[in-house]
């Protein structure tokens, strides 16, 4: 049947609307049927009630649908309005800004130590030196990371680049020099004693 034989241009809107409604009804019925088939198969195959547990647990974990509360029943913007007093500067800070503020205030976070180091570096380059470094020291009194960096730098220069210990192949060779460690006394006789069993 060709479309030309059917003159649909003479139709008014109400008929079209009726047809559209019918099509919708058909589609909804299809959806319902689909659901019925799914459920029926699930019942006959035995997996329909599989995701249910005992009544108690069902009640306990039921989805919560109240305003101001998430689906677990927890209040999620509880900390929006609370304010905390900073132990360092005694200011009252909003809760969500508290952590970053503490970071800057105590000078302990990743960023604040970076900023401090940059300031030190630029403070060494430009001859503002004294006052700046003192200020940094005061501000970084609690800053363990800064102190650790100082220590780390010290350690590196302590190692002797010429020490025979450096290369692993020399590990068992008994150099008269012995291992160069900070606290060891190189002239102690026990070094010589230790050498003996390894002598070739």
């Amino acid at each position, binding site marked *: *049947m060709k*479309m030309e034989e*059917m003159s*649909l*241009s003479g*139709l008014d809107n109400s*008929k*079209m*609307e009726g*047809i*559209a*409604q*019918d*099509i*919708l*009804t058909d*589609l*909804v*019925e*299809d*959806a*319902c*049927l*689909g*659901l*019925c*088939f799914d*459920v*029926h198969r699930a*019942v006959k195959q035995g997996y*329909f*009630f599989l995701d249910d547990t005992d009544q108690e647990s069902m009640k306990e974990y039921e989805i919560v649908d109240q305003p101001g509360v998430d689906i677990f029943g927890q209040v999620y913007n509880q900390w929006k309005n609370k304010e905390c007093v900073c132990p360092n500067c005694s200011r009252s800070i909003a809760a969500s800004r508290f952590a970053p503020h503490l970071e800057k205030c105590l000078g302990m976070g990743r960023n604040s130590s970076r900023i401090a180091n940059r300031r030190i570096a630029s403070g060494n380059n430009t001859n503002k030196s004294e006052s700046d470094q003192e200020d940094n020291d005061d501000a970084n009194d609690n800053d363990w990371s800064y102190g650790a960096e100082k220590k780390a730098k010290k350690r590196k220069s302590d190692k002797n680049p010429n020490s025979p210990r450096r290369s692993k192949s020399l590990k068992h060779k008994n150099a008269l020099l012995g291992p160069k460690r900070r606290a060891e006394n190189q002239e102690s006789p026990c070094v010589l004693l230790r050498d003996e069993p390894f002598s070739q």
Partner: protein
Amino acid sequence: MSKDSQMRAVINQKLIEMGERERLKELLRAKLIECGWRDQLKAHCKEVIKEKGLENVTVEDLVAGITPKGRALVPDSVKKELLLRIRAFLAQHAT
């Protein structure tokens, strides 16, 4: 066959041939799941099953018990959206 039903048949045929009916079905299915319709009806199914007994429930039981409620529970927004698409199709392909 009256002219009306002939015309409806033609429209339905076109709907299927162009794949639009399948698309509309998928759209409706997605929307109904989204709005919780499917879960509501599933809960209703549980009642029907408990009534008829797990072993004896038939497809007919479910269909008879579910379809009227299912038709009523479709939210208006979903209906409107589907109708818009259907009307657009009709306007494009049925005149």
